[in-house]
C-alpha cells in the first residue's frame, strides 16, 4: 500500500512525504521518502498507528526530520519493546536525520545500514 500527499499550489512549494510498506517475515517494513515535519506529521502518525506492531523503518529517503517526528518514532520503538516485538531503523544517515543522532537515540534504537542486515540480525 502507498499513500502520497502533495500539499501546495503554484506559489507554495510542495512538502511531500511518501510512505510505503510491505511485509517481510511478519515485519512491516516502512519506506519513508521526503519530509518529516509539521506539514506531514499527521500523515506519518496515522500511518505508523496502522502499521506494526513489528516495524522496520527505512529512513534512507528522508530529506528532513524534526523532533516531533523523532518523538513518534521513539513512541513506536517503545511500544515494540514493551510488546516484545521487533523494531529497527534502516539507513539513518547523520546529515539527513541529525535530530536522531544528536539526541543519542540513533545509538539506542537498533539501527542498520540495509534491510538485509536488519533481517539477519533480528528476523
Amino acid at each position, binding site marked *: 500500500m502507498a499513500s502520497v500527499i502533495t500539499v501546495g499550489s503554484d506559489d507554495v512549494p510542495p512538502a511531500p512525504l511518501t510512505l510505503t510498506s510491505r511485509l517481510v517475515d511478519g515485519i512491516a517494513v516502512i519506506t519513508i521518502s521526503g519530509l518529516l*515535519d509539521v506539514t506531514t506529521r499527521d500523515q506519518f502518525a496515522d500511518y505508523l498507528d496502522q502499521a506494526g506492531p513489528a516495524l522496520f523503518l527505512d529512513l534512507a529517503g528522508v530529506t528532513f526530520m524534526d523532533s*516531533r517526528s*523523532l518523538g513518534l518514532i521513539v513512541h513506536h520503538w517503545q511500544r515494540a519493546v514493551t510488546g516484545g516485538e521487533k523494531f529497527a531503523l534502516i539507513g539513518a544517515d547523520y546529515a539527513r536525520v541529525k535530530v536522531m543522532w544528536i*539526541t*543519542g537515540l540513533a545509538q539506542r534504537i537498533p539501527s542498520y545500514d540495509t534491510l538485509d542486515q536488519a533481517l539477519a540480525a533480528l528476523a
Partner: protein
Amino acid sequence: MMTERVLRCPINADLGRLRDVVHAYADAGGLRGERLEDLVLAVNEAVTNVLDHGGGAGTLTLHARPGAVLVQIEDTSGQLTREHLDAAEIDPTAMRGHGLWIIQRLCDGVHLQRTSRGALLTLTMNTPRTPHTPGPTGSPDCS
C-alpha cells in the same frame, strides 16, 4: 563597513518556505556547511513550537551582521519561559520536548525575552569574520 541587514517574515505553516528563506539568508550572511543546516533545523524547531504552543502565528526576523547571523522567533502567546529552556532535556521515553534541547544544543546563543506581543526567542550563530560577498542580488524575501 557592512551594515546590518534585516528581513522579516510572518510565521505560518509553510515551513518549507521558511526553511528555504533561513537557509538562503544565513548562507548570504556567511554561515556554511553543517552549521548552516544546524541553524535551519533549530529555526524549524522554534517555528514548530510557535505553531503548536505559541499561538500559531508570529514573526521570524533574520539579522546578518559581521560575525553573526541572528534569527528571532516571536510568538503571540508568550507561554515560552526561561524555565522551559532550562528544563529541556532528552528523555528517550518521551514523545515530546526534544525541540528546546535541540535548539540549545545546535545554536551558539539562545536568548529569551518577553515583548508586548509574546515571547521572543533569539538564536545566534557566529560566522567567520572574514570578508564575504553580501549575498546574491536576488536576496530571499517572504513575499
